[in-house]
Structures are given as structure tokens and as C-alpha cells.
């Protein structure tokens, strides 16, 4: 769908009503609407307050450990014999994933708003761990909703959250995965309106969340830009990131959207295959309305949301952030997908060649790097976002590979 009128800039969205083209919006119950408007105002104030940015910046440096390195993956590059591959090492952040960048921003905002009780949804548990971590750091009450299926396949993260003082609520409704965790978090928010801040983990939900979470994650792309200039004296030629809701991807992509020479690839989870159960909303879905925004969704002919499937709990969501839906329709970002098996293979390749255990989520991005890189020239600079580390996935991978631990 690249025949639509191209904007002068891909970086100006959303409009004041939270729309990226036809996507986004504020599709929430009336009870939540005043809260969503309060949040929008509070974020607009914080955005122009140097004190807010100074506090964020100090915590980014001393608590999260930013900037995260941009690392030349020499052996993977040799192995694939094509593009020069760099890893953006978000897995080295405190708590082990990119999620903490956004959580820091939202928790500082919650403090400005005087909210004492923080709720969050989580899939793989990385967002839940990051939220539990910052709530511990700032002495806030933390409740994390997590699908019962995910509680089972991400046990190490559930334990981490407990250790950090958070209460993890296993969600038994619906398909008992990330989308149901988000439903349950919204039900909590609508019930506890006075004191509760909903810390959404991805670039979805009602406006202003998609834009706000993106802004907090743009540190990934901004650093990459600077680091690549230092390393190579020029911009990268391509970017690759995995997409569930799409926060690590938009964080890397957004600062480069107007650099038309940069090819951008988002990798969705193709699960068992696109003709079977998967979680590739853009490839296999249609525009619909869920969780506060219009976006591409996996659903049946009646508009009922269908089960997503991915080996990776973090990508197991039947929707995607609205800005990705727009970038897809505008043709600025190319969205492709990787299956469970491809991700598992890429995971093992990365572990053996680079000594890095990526999470199963970025293993999807790596799987496509193994296809894309060999077709590129040797001077093509490709950045892949290693959005999280694989420690949390060890029990699950051991089980799949038939190795008891």
C-alpha cells in the first residue's frame, strides 16, 4: 500500500486526537476518559520540563546503565558473509530488556501526578519486572497482571517480580495470555481510578500511550544514531527489530524514519506458520478496535479477537501499536515475520557465535537477519535490536530442546 500520499515527515504523529492516519484514537470507557485526559496533560507538561528530563537522564545513566553499547557482531557477520551486523545491546540494561526505558519515564510521571499505586500488564514478564523494579526503587505499590499461561512459561520472571515486592495476579479469563492481562489491568484501572497509574508496556492503548511510550523508547534509536556515526562515520543502511506491540522496534526506528536511505524491517512472530496459529497482526490481520486504539488485529469475520500464538510470550499478542499499522500502510517500514522454529535456530546461532543469549523475542529479528544480511554488500551496515536477554527463556528452551534443567 505504498501508493498513498507520502507525508513530508514520518515523525510528526499523532494528531491531537491521537491518530496516526486512521489508526490510534481513544476507545475507552467513559470512566477512564477523564484519566486518559489527565495523563495526556501531565505528560505534555513533563515533556517540556527540564527537571523531568534531568531526572530521567540521571537514572538512565546510573540506574539503567545507559547508553547501551552498539556492538559489532564480528563472527555472525563472518558467518553470514554479507552485511556488517551491529547489535544494539538493550539486553544489557538493568532488568535485562528495553522495557525499563519506558517504565522509568512512566514511573517518574506517576510520581509527578501523585499516584501511589501502579498497575501493569505483562507477557514475557520483562515489562512486569521493569515495573516491579522501579516501584521498589521509588516505594510504590505494584500489581502486575499476567496471563496464567504466561505465568507458567515465564516462571523465573514471576519469581523476580515477587522478590521485588510486586503482587503478580495470574489472569484466568479468555485465552489467559497478554491480551487478557491487558483486559484485566483495564478492569483494575476502571475500578481504582483515584490513586492508580496504569503503566502500559508497549506502544498501544489509548492516546497518549502509543506516543508517550514511543518517546521514552526513542533513546534506543537516538543512541544508535550517535554510536554509528562514531563507529562508521555514517548512518546505518538497515534496521531490524522484533515486534509484538512494537515498543523496542519503534524506539529504534523512529529517529530514522525521515532518513529515507535507511531500510527498516519489523519482524512479527509467525508462530507455527502464517497459515496456522501465529501472532503476525500486520501480515495476517485487519484494522479493528481493541484496547483503546484502532490498529491491525487478528480476528474472525465477526470481529471476535482470535488466539495469537508465539513461542515467545512477549510477542504473543493479537494486535500491534497503531503507529506500526500506519507505517505499514504508508510503506515506510517493511514488516516480515519469523516462525517459532526460525527464532529458536537463530537463538542458538547467536549463542554459539557471539556468546550472547538473546531472548526469544529478538531471536525473531535475528532469524530475519540471517536471511537479509547475506543478500547485502559487505559495506552495508545493519543494526539489529537485541531487545532482551534470554535468561528468562532458559527453562522453556531446555524443555523444547529436550534438555532437562
Amino acid at each position, binding site marked *: 500500500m505504498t501508493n498513498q500520499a507520502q507525508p513530508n515527515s514520518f515523525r510528526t504523529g499523532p494528531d491531537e*486526537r491521537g491518530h496516526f492516519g486512521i489508526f490510534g*484514537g*481513544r*476507545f*475507552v*470507557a*467513559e*470512566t*477512564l*476518559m*477523564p*484519566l486518559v485526559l489527565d495523563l495526556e496533560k501531565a505528560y505534555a507538561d513533563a515533556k517540556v520540563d527540564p527537571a523531568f528530563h534531568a531526572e530521567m537522564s540521571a537514572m538512565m545513566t546510573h540506574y539503567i546503565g545507559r547508553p547501551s553499547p552498539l556492538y559489532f557482531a564480528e563472527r555472525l557477520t563472518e558467518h553470514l558473509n554479507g552485511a556488517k551486523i551491529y547489535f544494539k545491546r538493550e539486553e544489557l540494561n538493568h532488568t535485562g530488556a528495553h522495557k525499563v526505558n519506558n517504565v522509568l519515564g512512566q514511573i517518574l510521571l506517576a510520581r509527578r501526578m501523585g499516584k501511589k499505586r501502579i498497575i501493569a500488564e505483562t507477557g514475557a514478564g520483562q515489562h512486569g519486572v521493569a515495573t516491579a523494579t522501579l516501584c521498589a526503587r521509588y516505594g510504590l505499590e505494584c500489581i502486575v497482571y499476567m496471563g496464567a499461561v504466561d505465568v507458567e512459561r515465564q516462571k523465573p520472571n514471576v519469581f523476580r517480580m515477587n522478590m521485588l515486592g510486586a503482587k503478580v495476579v495470574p489472569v484466568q*479469563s*479468555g485465552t489467559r495470555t497478554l*491480551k*487478557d492481562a*491487558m*483486559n484485566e489491568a*483495564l*478492569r483494575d484501572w*476502571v*475500578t*481504582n*481510578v*483515584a490513586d492508580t497509574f496504569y503503566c502500559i508496556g508497549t506502544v498501544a492503548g489509548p492516546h497518549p500511550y502509543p506516543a508517550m511510550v514511543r518517546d521514552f523508547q526513542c533513546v534506543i534509536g537516538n543512541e544508535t544514531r550517535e554510536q554509528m556515526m562514531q563507529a562508521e562515520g555514517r548512518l546505518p543502511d538497515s534496521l531490524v527489530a522484533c515486534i509484538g506491540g512494537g515498543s523496542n522496534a519503534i524506539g529504534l526506528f523512529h529517529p530514522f524514519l525521515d532518513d529515507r536511505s535507511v531500510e527498516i524491517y519489523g519482524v512479527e512472530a509467525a508462530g507455527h506458520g502464517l497459515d496456522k496459529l501465529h501472532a503476525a497482526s500486520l501480515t495476517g490481520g*485487519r484494522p*479493528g*478496535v*481493541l*484496547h*483503546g486504539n484502532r490498529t491491525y*488485529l487478528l*480476528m474472525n*469475520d*465477526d*470481529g*471476535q*479477537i482470535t488466539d495469537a500464538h508465539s513461542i515467545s510470550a512477549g510477542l504473543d499478542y493479537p494486535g500491534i501499536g497503531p503507529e506500526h499499522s500506519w507505517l505499514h500502510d504508508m510503506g515506510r517500514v517493511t514488516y516480515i515475520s519469523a516462525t517459532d522454529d526460525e527464532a529458536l535456530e537463530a537463538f542458538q546461532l547467536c549463542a554459539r557465535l557471539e556468546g550472547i543469549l538473546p531472548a526469544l523475542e529478538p531471536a525473531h529479528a535475528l532469524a530475519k537477519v540471517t536471511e537479509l544480511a547475506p543478500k547485502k554488500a559487505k559495506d552495508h551496515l545493519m543494526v539489529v535490536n537485541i531487545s532482551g536477554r534470554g535468561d528468562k527463556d532458559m527453562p522453556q528452551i531446555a524443555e523444547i530442546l529436550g534438555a532437562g534443567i
Partner: protein
Amino acid sequence: MTTRIEARFEKCRREGRAALVTYVMAGDPDPETSLEILKSLPRAGADIVEFGLPFTDPMADGPAIQAAGLRALKVGQNTVKTLELVRRFREGDADTPVILMGYFNPIHTYGRDRFLVDARQAGVDGLIVVDLPPEEDDELCLPALEAGLAFIRLATPTTDDKRLPAVLANTAGFVYYVSITGITGMATPDFGKVAMAVERIKRHTPLPVVVGFGVKSGAHAAAVARGADGVVVGSALIDALNGTLDADDRATSRSVEAVTTLVKELSEGVRSVSKREAA
């Protein structure tokens, strides 16, 4: 032209009482039983019937309505079939207003304009769509009003005086005051506070104001009826139905009666409060 909704509130006013509004889920536990229940509601004392459009992800609903929706979807209920049930209800009842209540995605997927035509032809009088606040009025509210369907708005404890005019601007039929901050079927409201809230809303609109969320018994219904133009009951009816289902969630011989028994109790509650002096 007087609409069915206006006529029904006028009738209740003449009888000096509040209206009883009942909610059941279309297709729960199967289409025929849900139609039988729908038909029995006015006979048991319901003045207006709300028919739930099932949705996989009802994020403003509590466990009872979530489960009802999933039961309906499991036996293949969809929007086409729900409109067909309304059409069949209309064949035997020309006067009771039917309100469809649900979430936007099934309507969006059906196709908005086609949905409005088909709903009106089936005999639907109004829509309550939980996830469409005034900020999204272009999506369905304005086209629905244009098509002659009432778009009934929810006002909540978080809707302050500053926001009320926006909430009431493009609405018709009646205003649905959500008595608590929360989801359906959970907490019981403070009835004194509810009466004050209704009074506040009525300062801004001539429309009838009905109150729902957390109303479970005849006594609750009577308490709400004192301060409001109508009382909405949903989860309690679904709980009554659920209590009669067999181990495979199928209807039994007691299913319809369990619902009508509670509706009669609620109706007596509503009718026990005379509003003549206020009228």
C-alpha cells in the same frame, strides 16, 4: 414522531414509577433460550430490554458478563444472528424498546453503515457501546443518530460537571449513569451518592437518567428507583441463568424461569416506590 423509548418512559411516568431496564446476553446459553428469555422479560415486568452483543474482550465487564459472552460465542453467536433474534422478538412485541449493548469491534467489523441499516430494520431502538467516549463520536454516535437510532451514553462518577456537557451533547433516549467506578456485577453502590449524582446529571439534561452496575435485588432496585428514572440490572440476571445451566453450560427446564423470577422481584422493587409527587 415519538420513539419507543420516549413512549415507554412516558408510560412509566404516567404510572408514577421508575422504569426497569434488563440486560441479558444474546446467544447465552444458546440462541433459542436467549430469545425465549428476551420475550419473557417484558411479561415479567421489564420496561426496556438490553441485549448484549458478545465480544471476546469485554474490558468493562465483570466475570458474569465475560462468561456469558464466551458461552454465546462458543455456540456460534455473532452479530448477524443477534440481529435476527431481535427481528424475531419484534414480531411478537411492537412496543418494548430494544437496546443493543456491547463493544465497538464487532460493529466496526460488520461495517458501520450496513450495521445501522440492519439494526434499525431488525427493530433495534438504541445502542450502548462501551468503548466509544464522546471523543470518538464520528465513529458511530453521529451516524447512529442520523440513522434514527438512539446513541445512549454512559456517565460515570468520574464524569465531572466540566465534562458532562460533552458527554450529553450527542445523546438520545436516556442517559445511563454507571453507579460505581468499576466493572459490571461487582460492588454495590452507595445509593445516597447515586441519587445526588442523578440530580447533578438532570441539571444538565431533560433526558431520563437510569442507573446501573451493582443492582442485584428487589431492595436494591427500590433504593435506586427513589432517585432515578430507571434501574438497570444485568449481571444478577446472568448469574440467575448461570445457576441453572448443566455441567456443559446448556440450558435446563429451569433456565428461563430463574431469570423471570428475579425480574419479577426487581419489578416489584421498582413499583414499590411511588414517584407521583415528584412528577
